[in-house]
């Protein structure tokens, strides 16, 4: 029950434009989801460094959460390079060289992890696009590509942690935004859980993220992973996935959920509705394309 958006600038064109574009696109389709808004943004990666973001809340609650996080970081041999408490988030950059999945599961014990990645940073909270931007200064992010999401909460509560994008728990730099409903959720989740994957929510979008990240970690290309996802996932869906260098989409065979895309020499933009794309090009009619049912594709920063 939502609206999705994704954008990737070719070459060095991203910078401050990515976040700004996503804010505009999400504002354009806020009617699809007034409850919460979120962004997955990919910035510059530094070797051996990981960015982590947690929900810690405010006041005493936040102080104890940050203490727990710092203690667990030390236990995991991750040394803090910089940190910040902003809005309800605690953001920290660490030096780390171990196994990310084990590290991530350990950090989950300390506090609610929003994202972990070399370049990925997810910002999401209750509220509209401009409200979330105001709280977390999203427009100041420098990035190459990113995803965005507006949510209308139905089955789960209006809580910041139920907002999208979803990070693929345990896998650095994989994020997803999804519009629709996966009907074989529990079946697929049990399969992954049997292989020791852990889930932090009951949200079907987290499942898609982990499903894809698992394929990627086996060395399967994103294109191929998206292709199998259309066979493996039942239900209605239009989703966007992003990694350090790629953005991809998949759409269910029944074409129930909308998706529309636009490409030019500078960028690729995908959204639930054309009205979002037009926010980037006011007053200009766009030569857009609606992906057919059961289709998937990826774009890479290098191409």
């Amino acid at each position, binding site marked *: *029950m939502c609206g999705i958006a994704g954008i990737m600038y070719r070459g060095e064109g991203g910078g401050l434009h990515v976040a700004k574009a996503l804010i505009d696109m999400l504002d354009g389709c806020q*009617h699809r989801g007034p409850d919460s808004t979120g962004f997955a943004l990919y910035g510059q990666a530094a070797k051996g460094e990981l960015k982590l973001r947690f929900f810690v809340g405010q006041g005493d609650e936040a102080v104890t959460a940050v203490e727990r996080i710092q203690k667990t970081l030390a236990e995991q041999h991750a040394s803090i390079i910089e940190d910040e408490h902003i809005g309800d988030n605690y953001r920290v950059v660490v030096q780390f060289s171990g196994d990310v999945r084990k590290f991530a599961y350990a950090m989950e014990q300390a506090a609610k992890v929003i994202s972990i990645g070399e370049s990925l940073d997810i910002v999401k909270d209750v509220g509209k696009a401009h409200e979330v931007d105001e709280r977390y200064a999203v427009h100041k992010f420098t990035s190459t590509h990113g995803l965005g999401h507006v949510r209308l909460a139905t*089955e789960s*509560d209006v809580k910041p942690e139920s907002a999208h994008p979803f990070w693929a728990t345990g896998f650095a730099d994989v994020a997803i935004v999804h519009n629709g409903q996966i009907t074989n959720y529990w079946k697929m989740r049990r399969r992954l859980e049997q292989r020791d994957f852990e889930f932090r929510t009951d949200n079907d979008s987290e499942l898609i993220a982990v499903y894809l990240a698992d394929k990627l970690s086996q060395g399967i290309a994103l294109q191929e992973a998206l292709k199998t996802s259309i066979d493996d996932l039942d239900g209605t869906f239009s989703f966007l996935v992003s990694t350090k260098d790629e953005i991809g989409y998949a759409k269910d065979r029944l*074409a129930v959920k909308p998706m529309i895309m636009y490409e030019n020499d500078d960028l690729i933009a995908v959204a639930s*509705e054309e009205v979002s794309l037009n926010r980037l090009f006011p007053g200009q*009619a766009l*030569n857009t394309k609606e992906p*057919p*049912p059961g289709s998937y594709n990826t774009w890479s920063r290098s191409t």
Partner: protein
Amino acid sequence: MVTIDLAKIPVREANERIRQYGAEGQDVEVINPDARHHIGVGLTAEINVKIRGSAGYFCAGLTDKVHFEVDNNVGWGLGDNIYNGSVVVGGNAGAIAGVAIRGAELVIRGNMGSRAGQVMKAGTLCCAGNANFMAGYMMYGGRIIILGDSGERVGEDMAGGEIYVGGEVHSLGSDAQIVDVDGAELDDIRAFLDRYELKFKGTFKKVVNAGKNLRYATSERQVRSIPFFTFSGETDYWNAKIQEDLYIKSQIGRYRIRGYGGARELPHLSDLAFKKDLSQSDHGPDPVSKVNMYTEIGGINGATPLKLSMPVMIAPMSYGALSRSTKQAIGMASSLSSIAENTGEGGMSDAQRDAAAQLIFQCLGGRLGWNIYDMKRANGLEIYISQGAKPGFGGQLMAKKVTKELAEIRGIPPGIDLRSPSRHPDILGADDLVIKVEEFREATSYKLPVSVKLGAGRVRDDMKIAVKDGFDFVELDGMQGSTGAGGAEVMEYVGIPTVAAIMEALDALEEIGVRDKMQIVLMGGIRDGIDAAKALCLGSDAVGYGTSTIIAGGCIACMQCHVGQCVTGIATQDPEHEKRYQPAIEAQNIHRFLESVRWQIATVTHALGYTDVKQLNRDDLVALTPEAAAITRLPYEPGYRDRHLELKAKVG
């Protein structure tokens, strides 16, 4: 030509101006449309509108006599429900282009998205490029011309109309077939293409309905009906009802269809009692004068509310399932008692509009009888999602009832077993629904309340969606509700009871802290004023009466509503049968029943020590059974059951 700049004014204001210009006979150019939704919705004056750019969802929707030209693309639902006129799109169209159109010519110079022409009734939808998945899905009439390729499953479940494909037919939908095109048809298509300067040299393949699934293969044999009280008894596994059921299934080899509601015993309002011993109270000669019962429904977001002399409405029942005379009588009764009537599925008749002072117009997935003119003369609009007797299923109207006249109003081929779609073409989630609600508001200048009818299923989630999508009130229908025709097992076993539904609904509103932002009209097996008072105590804002009014108006509960040969002239479209029904007399009968409801609500309210029905509350109730107590969380007081039985014995 006047220019409207959408970079400067919002669509809502632009539409008001376009309507104004239309009335003055001025043409309009819209600049900077930037794919915004609802441009030109609800226009019924002859006008030329040029859109310089791309338009969003429902462009030119719910219109008549308009000519639209869009330079570039359009979003979902192009020309939704348009009657006459034309829409020409220079670029591509999103999904469900030409949804539910009733005439007009729609031309898309680029490609069109999935499910184009879904449930269309008449007119021409022409796409110069390629179509996509399930073009012509459930179409009832009119023609689709595709110059490019058809996409997969073209003509899926189409009941009528023709689809001409110039390119490749990728695959046929279920019950669709390819037939020859004759010369006259070709000439007509060529003339159409010339008119819109579309060049096409090739030939066409014509896709039509294959006729294998329009009627049930075997009809149910008529048997002497078992009286409802025997029918609803569950004393014995192999009773008369089960035997009859097995026998009929042995003949038809499928599930059975019947009228009326479920007959199983379920927790209901009768399992609740008033805490106070009302037999001791003295109501005096005129309790009605001592209690304020006036109730407004639907005004919470600023629309003109329905003004009810008591917290009571008529539940939605269709002209189709019921005869025209019956709908007329119910309408008259609703006016006599100053409450609101509801069209149900299948359109609004003049007789019904004239009879009912306040009338809600219901919109279902098949868009049968749905149109802008009746929307504008309604007092409320309602989006039907499902009904309590068969949540998740579409309506059924057997061929006997699908007469020529009825088929015309609904825009469907006569003589088919009509199985209405269970889903709306353009409501596939809460996110699409919000855009649909907005379209209705745009089309009627934000004056009418827009409600949603929910059959009790996943009430908790549905209620939250209803609030977030901005509905003005919910009609919540429990499992004890009835229907004109439904699968027998579905009626007995699908859904949740009315008391459980209202509890879930209220819990959902509490959970998100918006109890005051939604009104609930509860229905489903409400039989008298006592049931109503209990429903109000539980937290409903009003209640709906369906079956009760039918019975008050002469129904004999034979459960054969689906057959179409109703002996009382109620559930029939056969003029000979309908003759037996006298609307003026039955209207008085229904009115008297409604007045008995008024008296009972007033008497209970007064006896409980209140002066206004809004003071009724949960603390006035107890539960008589453990099940009812578990559902309602009311105190379980079996002692009250003895008092209840004692009273009953006394009354006889």
